């Protein structure tokens, strides 16, 4: 494996700026890595990518090299390649959302975040695998087969953004975009040993993000360092007139906060450990690594207290009413009339539009998607609306108030990101409720619209698999996540003697690796 690809995005940007490498060279190195280990076809590789665009990525890389040579880079990350979750519209590149119903659909437009990546000069390596329409916590619900965890190929990489997390964790891409509706960036980050950020709701444009639940979805960075996330966040973030829910004010200083935090000093920072998000239901090794990480933060000068958010226990139930309600409506447009899969009903000679819609949706959607459409349709039905959707909105307000009360006492909240480490593929696929529990700690932030980050907290002693530390901040205070996250990262990596991912398997059987 080329050592080039083991560097962080910030290091790659420095190397490009110093002329030590070119964007074409490092884009090719990542494409080579994908070619060696992704193995989408044989079903034994990581299978992080649903579509690789070598030609487009290399062309963008060549253009980036020209700008660098002319001394006019388009951004700090100009020329650093990136992978994009397949739920984001990419002009000219297939966008399937991991679903058969969108197989072969090529959007005629770019999502705003994708347009910003192109503008900033980041070559797009391809589109990453995901649970169908982002519905799942394991990427097993992809219609195109699961993604595998680089730490252990028999295990899940989290979800729904397992493809983006696995691509970054396995050095197929230095950066990726994910989307987080209930934890789909942070939970995969936790179980693959990567960094994932869900920005403040409205902080990053959703235009071009194929919505699962519009009031919960956010686009965010998936990276191998806190600084890399900040760099990427500053490129994709900020107001977009095409997204009415986008916040019309400048981002806080994210990169600056990450650099400040990396010094490892947390004097004066108050951290609250959320009582409801620890203890029972959390794997012993997860809890242990979390407690150790908190102890490190105390050593660094942080003041740590326990905080109670009593309504968080209702977060999962609330989420599973609001999300499917919105999703059931969002997914109505997939009716085979204008794009995507079209299936004629069996044995019907001259089918009506309605029959074609029904047959296509029956064939095109997977079980989990159908389950949520049914849940949402039910929750919105007249006579049930007040008891379900209406009630859930009220509880949502209470959860937001819990956050407000907590942030009256502390600067950031902390919890384990996910209750367990990566579980074996197939383990929970037949048990939706067990699957849903993966997001128990991440969902409150989506309901409240507040930002969160997951950073690697070490390997659980019992299984040697990554554990995530989640930090949560008030809306619009994403900079706090970067400051505290970078401090924790510095302190933890000092203990480990380097990045956690240095301990991950190399995945390439060949010993004749190119050493740079």
């Amino acid at each position: 494996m080329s050592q080039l690809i083991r560097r962080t995005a910030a290091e790659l940007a420095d190397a490009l700026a110093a002329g030590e490498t070119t964007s074409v060279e490092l884009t090719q190195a990542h494409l080579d890595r994908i070619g060696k280990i992704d193995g989408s076809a044989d079903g034994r590789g990581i299978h992080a990518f649903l579509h690789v665009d070598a030609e487009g990525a290399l062309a963008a890389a060549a253009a980036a090299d020209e700008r660098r040579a002319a001394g006019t880079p388009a951004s700090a990350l100009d020329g650093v390649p990136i992978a994009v979750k397949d739920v984001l519209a990419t002009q000219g590149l297939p966008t399937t959302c991991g679903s058969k119903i969108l197989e072969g659909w090529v959007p005629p437009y770019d999502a705003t975040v994708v347009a910003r990546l192109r503008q900033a000069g980041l070559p797009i390596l391809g589109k990453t695998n995901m649970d169908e329409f982002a519905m799942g916590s394991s990427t097993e619900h992809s219609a195109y087969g699961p993604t595998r965890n680089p730490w252990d190929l028999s295990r899940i990489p989290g979800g729904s953004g397992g493809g983006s997390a696995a691509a970054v964790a396995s050095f197929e891409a230095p950066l990726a975009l994910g989307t987080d509706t209930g934890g789909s960036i942070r939970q995969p980050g936790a179980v693959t040993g990567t960094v994932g950020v869900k920005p403040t709701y409205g902080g990053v444009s959703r235009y071009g993000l194929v919505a699962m639940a519009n009031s919960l979805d956010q686009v965010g960075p998936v990276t191998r360092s806190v600084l890399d996330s900040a760099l990427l966040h500053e490129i994709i973030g900020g107001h977009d007139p095409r997204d009415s829910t986008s916040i019309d004010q400048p981002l806080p200083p994210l990169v600056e906060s990450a650099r400040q935090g990396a010094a490892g000093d947390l004097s004066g920072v108050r951290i609250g450990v959320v009582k409801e998000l620890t203890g029972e239901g959390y794997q012993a090794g997860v809890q242990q690594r979390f407690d150790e990480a908190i102890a490190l933060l105390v050593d660094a000068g942080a003041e740590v207290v326990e905080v109670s958010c009593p309504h968080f226990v209702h977060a999962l139930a609330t989420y599973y009413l609001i999300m499917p309600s919105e999703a059931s409506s969002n997914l109505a447009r997939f009716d085979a009339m204008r794009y995507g899969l079209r299936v004629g009903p069996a044995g019907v000679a001259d089918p009506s539009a309605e029959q074609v819609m029904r047959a296509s949706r029956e064939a095109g959607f997977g079980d989990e998607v159908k389950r949520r459409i049914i849940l949402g349709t039910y929750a919105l039905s007249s006579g049930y609306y007040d008891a379900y959707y209406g009630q859930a909105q009220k509880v949502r307000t209470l959860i937001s108030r819990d956050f407000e009360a907590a942030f009256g006492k502390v600067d950031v909240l902390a919890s384990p990101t996910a209750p367990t480490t990566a579980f074996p593929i197939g383990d929970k696929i037949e048990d939706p409720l067990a699957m849903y529990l993966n997001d128990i700690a991440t969902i409150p932030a989506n309901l409240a619209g507040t930002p969160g980050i997951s950073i690697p907290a070490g390997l659980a002693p019992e299984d040697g698999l990554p554990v995530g530390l989640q930090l949560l901040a008030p809306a619009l205070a994403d900079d706090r996540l970067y400051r505290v996250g970078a401090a924790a990262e510095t302190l933890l990596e000092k203990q480990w003697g380097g990045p956690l991912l240095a301990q991950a398997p190399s995945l390439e059987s060949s010993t004749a690796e190119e050493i740079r």
Partner: protein
Amino acid sequence: MSETLVPFDEALSKFDPAMGLEVHVELNTATKMFCGCPTEFGAEPNTQTCPTCLGLPGSMPVVNGKAVESAIRIGLALNCSIAPWCRFARKNYFYPDMPKNFQTSQYDEPICFDGWTDVQFENAAGETETFHVEIERAHMEEDTGKSLHVGGSTGRIQGADHSLVDYNRAGIPLIEIVTRPIVGARENAPLVARAYVAYLREIILSLGVSDARMEQGSMRCDVNLSLAPRGSGALGTRTETKNVNSLRSVERAARYEVTRQAAVLSGGGSVLQETRHWHEDTGVTTSGREKSDADDYRYFPEPDLVPVAPPPEWVEELRASLPEDPRQKRTRLQAEWGYTDLEMRDVVAAGAVTLIEETIAAGTSAQAARKWWLSELARRANEQGVELAELPITTGQVARIQALVDEGSINDKLARQVFDGVLAGEGSPDEVVATRGLAIVSDDGALGEAVDRAIAANPGVAEKIRAGKVAAAGALIGAVMKDMRGQADAGRVRELILEKLS
């Protein structure tokens, strides 16, 4: 399939009709409700679309501020309260011409609510009556695409070979204006319905927020009607007759449903709650989709849009800048112009109020302005099947033609040729007069020669005039006019004849 009907008067003797009128108005904003696509009518199918109005995955709506302004102005003109805060909601149902399979509309939080308007109509006895119509709400929504069902005999989706969908209309801003049940109008119910829609149309036109063309579908009316036993004070089961697209049809459809429902009820049957289709040609309604209160649109607030919260001071600004009420304005103009009731009614019916107002402002007398617009130009508009306002002539040009008549450069007969030229795109009235050579000739040289020719050709007539029969001059004037293709100054010709034969 012909229904049994009960004569209208007989129906009224047994039942009280109640109506609810739902009017959809397409706003004339430059762009659509939630995207930047143009709204121009009649473009090639599917050329005015983008990811948002096609409902492509990932696309998002943005509210058109101008449409909100128009909605508020309509609400204010209908004496509505304006919501300080309201939201859009999704109305979920599947249909091929709905790009997202939900319509972004408003549900329990309409932007305008609790209004009223007084409509005037002429009853069967020819007296003017006023009826108070309460407005429940006026809300904003987007239009759907337009389906064209090809093949089959009905033009409906059933039996069609295939269907075509034009999404140019998808996302056009609509305001839906809904009345409270109109009760107590009795035998006048159909007249009230027509008068309400007519007055609403006038208000919309005066606000300039829509061209409100019922025949083109930019204003569409649904007539909900039910009957209850006379004097019971109850509300019966209603039918919803869709897309009644002319004022006359509104009246006819209401009248028809009274007679049809009365027959059903009198025969011991019950009225089915359903959508009905109005047939302009045969003047009947036929059963459409059965509709019930169980129809569940699963409304919920549109999460991709932030609430609309019009600042009160803005609403007050809009209220202060509302145009004069069209009925008051009509009364005022009629008095100013000195038109009879009949003349004014024709002007209003022809949609010529503003045109005449502008023509008068450009210097033409009220009678002359009415004459040109309602005779010469109305005839041409009618021939071409367009509205008066669509004729390629400006009010300034009409005024200039009348000015040419007033100053004696042309006469009425020549003026018609000038209209021909202007409408044919030959230029301004003065240019047409010049290029077509239409000016009246009053030059004594040319006129004298023509008079000499006429005298020579009609020696008998000339002799009579010489003998003092001045009245005979008319025949010679006619001959001169014919000789000069109508362009002779008739007064001067007469003078020349009398001079030469004195």
